């Protein structure tokens, strides 16, 4: 997927002589762009080469001398991506020009890179911390930053293994807790930053209109504890009557330091952590990570395992979309009855996951080169019963029950979500992009695994209103059932892993970006290895986090009663969003 762009058509070096070099480090691909010409090159990449979807922006720390910002751009018409990088000296302030005016979708990702790596994006209008809070000490993903419970750079820790000792992490910390304060810190003299900067960013929306009628605008906090935000999401908005005049999302209430923990872990140790990203879809989370590492290791996947991967991923997509419909109706006020219908089917799918992997939700099922356990005949029969005798009828039932419903139609039909042009600019992926009329599905646009062997349609709807966003989920369930039907019929017998089971895998140096079409959108893993047992950089490009970049754009002008539904359409899962 991240194969270097074909030099015949995409030769950035020839287009910008002296400003762009090919990345020649072993295992790396793409181009290295001079910092000062980044904007010029990015504009050419978007306008001349047609890479209109900037999916992933992240930084990598290479102490002692340099930091790197990595950009992954794709075409919404499909095909492989283009990787380009900017290298800057590792001397504060580390500054890189912001691409926000070319690709508005990089907004939150650049803020994340500033927050966690301390890369300053010049020209970014609102460069605040996003996952941590203002006033937090340091930039955690820098390699020389140490957390409170720091023990060693990499696992397994020598003090525990192989002797098998253990102790409480608190015992080794001077504060007896997961804390790290600067020298001579006095908590009583600390003045909390609070939300001054946040409200400052909203202040530009509070200017009074000059149309004669003077109305006050009020600022409302929604979340982080709110029944309709699907987790610990917080939106701060300025209201003009019932209309949203300005909005800023506040994230990070579930920031569990996935990247930092992932860089201490060995490659295989990260697999169960990926389960906990989007906790509805541990199977597709596993898939993306396995793809990235397999690409680095350059190993094939066992044939039977490829089919198993598709089967479990599609089952996962079905239960996710069913629960989405249930919770959407919750948000519309149909409290709980549709959810009960959705969870009934979800339980049956989770039963299958439990039977094949041992866990209902956190399956930890994929391994590099295959999967961990085979699907026995009895379980396969259960899957067949579910796919052929139940799920399609239940989907029809849900469709029949809800789609023509008067309340649903009046709340959703014609309520604007986003149009295709903006959706692409804001890097939206997944059902929301397809409901806006862009038939972009990674399973078809840039096939991974064996998705190129199946006959299915990319579900697409063209109005981009809330109703389409709901209908596309039902379309996708039906397409998933089509894929499942083919996969169940074609699955061969054979080994389930091309490799021998091992606790430690050898991963050659290099970089890889593995991405899958998760039920929420594009889920990508950017993994950099330096040949050691632990990843040097492990970055998750979550669908929810990037999709929510457009929330501000979508919400401004909408009514506050519709905001709950607009937010529900992103199908956000905070575990993935905040990581």
């Amino acid at each position, binding site marked *: 997927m991240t194969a270097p762009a074909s030099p015949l058509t995409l030769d950035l070096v020839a287009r910008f002589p002296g400003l762009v070099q090919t990345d020649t480090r072993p295992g790396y691909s793409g181009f290295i762009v001079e910092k000062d010409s980044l904007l010029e090159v990015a504009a050419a990449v978007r306008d001349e080469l047609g890479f209109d979807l900037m999916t992933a922006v992240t930084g990598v720390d290479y102490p002692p001398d340099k930091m790197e910002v990595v950009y992954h751009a794709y075409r919404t018409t499909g095909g492989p991506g283009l990787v380009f990088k900017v290298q800057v000296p590792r001397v504060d302030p580390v500054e890189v020009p912001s691409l926000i005016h070319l690709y508005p979708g990089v907004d939150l990702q650049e803020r994340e890179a500033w927050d966690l790596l301390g890369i300053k994006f010049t020209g970014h209008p609102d460069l605040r911390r996003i996952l941590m809070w203002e006033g937090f000490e340091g930039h955690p993903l820098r390699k020389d930053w140490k957390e409170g419970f720091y023990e060693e750079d990499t696992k397994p820790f020598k003090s525990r293994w192989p002797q098998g000792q253990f102790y409480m992490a608190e015992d080794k910390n001077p*504060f007896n807790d*997961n804390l790290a304060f600067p020298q001579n810190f006095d908590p*009583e003299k600390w003045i909390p930053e609070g939300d001054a900067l946040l409200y400052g960013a909203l202040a530009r929306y509070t200017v009074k209109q000059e149309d004669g009628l003077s109305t006050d605008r009020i600022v409302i906090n929604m979340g982080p504890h709110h029944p309709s935000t699907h987790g610990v999401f917080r939106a701060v908005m300025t209201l003009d009557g019932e209309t949203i005049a300005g909005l800023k999302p506040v994230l990070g*209430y579930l920031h569990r330091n996935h990247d930092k923990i992932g860089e201490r872990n060995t490659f295989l140790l990260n697999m169960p952590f990926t389960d906990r990203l989007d906790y509805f879809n541990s199977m597709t989370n596993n898939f993306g990570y396995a793809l990235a590492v397999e690409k680095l290791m350059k190993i094939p996947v066992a044939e039977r395992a490829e089919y198993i991967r598709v089967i479990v991923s599609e089952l996962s997509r079905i239960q996710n979309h069913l629960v989405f419909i249930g919770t959407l109706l919750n948000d519309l006020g149909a409290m709980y009855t549709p959810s009960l219908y959705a969870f*009934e089917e979800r339980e049956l799918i989770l039963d299958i996951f439990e039977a094949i992997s041992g866990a209902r939700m956190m399956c930890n099922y994929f391994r590099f080169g295959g999967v961990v356990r085979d699907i026995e005949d009895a379980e396969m029969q259960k899957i067949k019963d579910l796919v052929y005798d139940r799920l399609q009828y239940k989907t029809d039932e849900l469709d029949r029950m809800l789609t023509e419903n008067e309340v649903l139609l009046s709340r959703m039909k014609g309520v604007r979500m986003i149009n295709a042009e903006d959706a692409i600019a804001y890097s939206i992926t997944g059902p929301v992009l397809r409901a806006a009329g862009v038939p972009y599905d990674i399973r078809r646009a840039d096939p991974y695994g064996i998705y190129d062997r199946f006959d299915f349609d990319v579900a697409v709807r063209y109005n981009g209103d809330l109703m389409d966003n709901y209908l596309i989920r039902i379309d996708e369930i039906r397409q998933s059932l089509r894929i499942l039907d083919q996969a169940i019929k074609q699955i061969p017998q054979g080994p389930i892993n091309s490799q021998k089971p091992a606790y430690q895998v050898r991963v050659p140096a290099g970089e890889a970006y593995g991405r899958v079409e998760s039920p929420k959108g594009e889920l990508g893993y950017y993994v950099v290895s330096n040949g050691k047992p632990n990843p040097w950089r492990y970055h998750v490009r979550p669908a929810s986090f990037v999709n929510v970049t457009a929330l501000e754009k979508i919400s401004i002008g909408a009514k506050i009663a519709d905001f709950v539904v607009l937010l529900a359409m992103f199908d956000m899962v905070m575990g993935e969003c905040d990581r």
Partner: protein
Amino acid sequence: MDNEQLSLPQYEVPEDLQHAIAVTTLDRLYNWGRRSSVWPLMFGLACCAIEMIAAQTARYDLARFGMEVMRPTPRQADMLLVSGTVTKKMVPAIIRLYNQMPEPKYVVAMGACASGGGPFKEGYNVVAGIDKFLPVDVYIPGCPPTPQALIAGLIKLQEKIDKQSIKQVPWYRRKTKDPNYVPVPILGPDLIDPRRNAEIKSAAAVKEG
């Protein structure tokens, strides 16, 4: 609780009156009412919240225990089910919610993260267990606990409620300030627990640069 459980075993009620009369203590009656109508705060943090929702659906049916009425506002809730990883950024909000809940209130730590940090314990933004801040009544192990495990934990909570006596419970006693009030932590260079200010100051002073 049916009549048999409500009645004290040492009093014999004639058989023809058993459908109408129960001899019991005030404590038993009081706790019977409370244990059968524990209203949880509608509050989900992470993965465990999904299993909490699953426990409420038809298959597991938490309503059998009188715990299906999720209240979105803390002022109507009896139980704070901490369902997921407690992060430093989130913990001030959780403490505020807890302080707003009226007595009697209970805290259940659901899952490995809420009990002790779980797989994310080493993370720089993770609080190693909600019990660093709140008094926890029941810990439920698992990552995430299955709905069955959650229900088992909640039955333990009911058993705990059964043991309380109206004469001794703190919430009917005369008091000048709320004994359960927890000072809200402050987001500084790291999370500051105001109760530990002196300790933090002295430890930060001796820390080697």
